[in-house]
């Protein structure tokens, strides 16, 4: 009896490997990724589904949301919907760029710190210092000193994220370095670079991917915050933060200028966080159990 049950159960287990089963096991990643996919598509086809975000029609100033203007218009008579759609491009570009830059730089510094004790002592003091500066202020300081541009914004947001990545990578490297297989590699005369690349790097990958999603989400929020404060993306670029910043003056009579980009921002960050949480649960079950 027992054997037949086991025999009957076995193929069912195997059949659970289909895509539908995967979705059922990872609902958070699926929902998050689905929303993100929609956003990416919207950003890509923006010129097809939205009007020119910069074209203005003074006679249409501060119109309520309607069939012609889904999200209403701003004080220059620009279509908020078109601006929000184009804003998706900016937010995603900033989020992804910062995630890539911060992760890559953080990975290199982190591996070096974990591997060379002398580098570690100095670099970690610098990282401690950087970490104690509130990230938005650090970005503001950088932006005040340079001409505003999207690249500067990306760099300014990346710098405060780097120490967090460095700490993560370093901690992984420090624990991996004590493993017998590293000792074996050293004994076999493997060059340091090869050890780092082949034996240490793969171990950092899982936590790094999870961290990258969180960096991406926080970068999008920071960019919006900076633009909102007037220290971010140049005002002529329709980023969500800029749209909200412009809407401030007319908030009491036309709240939609702030509401729609704000909600899009929240949805985007939510989607990325969901993917991050899902990846964390799949890739790093140890943390998942604790949370």
């Amino acid at each position, binding site marked *: 009896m027992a054997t037949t049950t086991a025999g009957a159960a076995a193929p069912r287990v195997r059949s659970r490997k289909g895509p539908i089963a995967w979705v059922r096991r990872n609902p958070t990643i699926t929902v998050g990724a689905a929303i993100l996919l929609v956003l990416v598509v919207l950003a890509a086809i923006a010129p097809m589904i939205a009007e020119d975000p910069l074209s203005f029609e003074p006679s249409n100033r501060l119109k309520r949301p309607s069939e012609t203007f889904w999200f209403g218009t701003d004080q220059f008579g620009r279509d908020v919907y078109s601006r929000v759609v184009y804003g998706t491009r900016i937010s995603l570009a900033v989020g992804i760029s910062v995630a890539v830059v911060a992760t890559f730089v953080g990975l290199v510094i982190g591996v070096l710190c974990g591997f060379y004790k002398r580098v570690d002592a100095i670099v970690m*003091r*610098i990282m*401690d*210092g*950087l970490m*104690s*500066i*509130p*990230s*938005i*202020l*650090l970005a*503001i*300081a*950088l*932006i*005040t*000193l*340079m*001409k505003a541009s999207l690249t500067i914004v990306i760099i300014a947001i990346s710098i405060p994220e780097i120490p967090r990545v460095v700490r993560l990578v370093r901690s992984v490297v420090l624990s991996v370095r004590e493993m017998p297989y590293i000792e074996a590699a050293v004994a076999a005369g493997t060059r340091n670079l090869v050890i780092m690349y082949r034996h240490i790097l793969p171990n950092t990958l899982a936590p790094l991917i999870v961290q990258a999603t969180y960096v991406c*989400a926080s970068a999008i*929020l*920071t960019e*919006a*915050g900076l633009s*909102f*404060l*007037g*220290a971010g993306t140049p005002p002529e670029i329709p980023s969500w933060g800029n749209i*909200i910043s412009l809407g*401030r003056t007319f*908030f*009491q009579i036309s*709240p939609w200028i*702030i*509401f729609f980009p*704000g*909600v899009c*921002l*929240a*949805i985007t*960050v*939510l989607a990325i*966080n*969901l993917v991050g*949480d899902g990846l964390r649960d799949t890739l790093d079950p140890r943390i998942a159990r*604790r*949370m």
Partner: protein
Amino acid sequence: MTAYIIRRLFATIPVMVVVALFVFLLLHLTPGDPAAIIAGDDATPVEIEGVRRRLGLDRPIWEQFGIYAWGLLQGDLGTSIFSNLPVTTLVAQRLEPTVVLALSTLLVAVICAIPLGVVAAWKARTFIDRIVMGFSVLGFAVPVFLVGYVLIYIFSIELRWLPVQGYRPLAQGIDQTFRSVVLPAVALGTTYMALIARITRASMLEVLSEDYIRTAHAKGVTTKSVLLRHALKNAAVPIVTVIGLGMAALISGVVITETVFNIPGLGRLTVDAILKRDYPIIQGLIIIFAGTKVLINLMIDISYTFFDPRIRY
């Protein structure tokens, strides 16, 4: 204990030196001419020279850092380019609203989030737990300014319960201050609440699976007492850590919240400084905020001994 605190205070020195060095070098290592950028797009060469001299950029770099560091040691954070007032004076003028806002946010967040987290852990994997966790996931995603404007719209514009924006100083009566600060505190506290609720739940869940909790239940201790006296106190260390870390992270949110609610605090000072590219003010604020963050971290570490007597320094 005292020896530990003194040792930790000394350990903050290198961190603060790095911070000072960083804000100083930022001015010098950024590509382009900082004097020209600070002076603005339509500044004449004479004006640019003026800014350069005011910032001391015309002197050798080591001399400049010497002057700057010596000033810092004496509590001199520099002088604003535009108002010509010492940064310390400007900060002192704007300190009250920011401190009141930060403390109210801390209070609101802790009062709401810890019970939420405790209940979520107690009723783990039920409907209530799902709602609390859903809120905490949402709380991380919703930007401060969206919460802020929605709150203003509902409570100030539609319901007219609270003032739309602005800040009433404590000198005008604490009830007025409270009314002006409640919405900003809730807006700023959303993310913070999400963070605390989440860690409270996680930490409680871990403690609730311990043997002594089962023993407490078995000997007939009331659920309330088990949760609060046995579990929460033992779950406190990670919660306190996160409250402290979150407090430090609040500082960034303060700048945005003050702009949304028109509160004339340090955040507004920052924004005004951005608009005028008044770098010395931003430099000074970074030193102050970084110092605060370092001190908060120190306080968290010291508080561990209070919540967990097994930890001794």
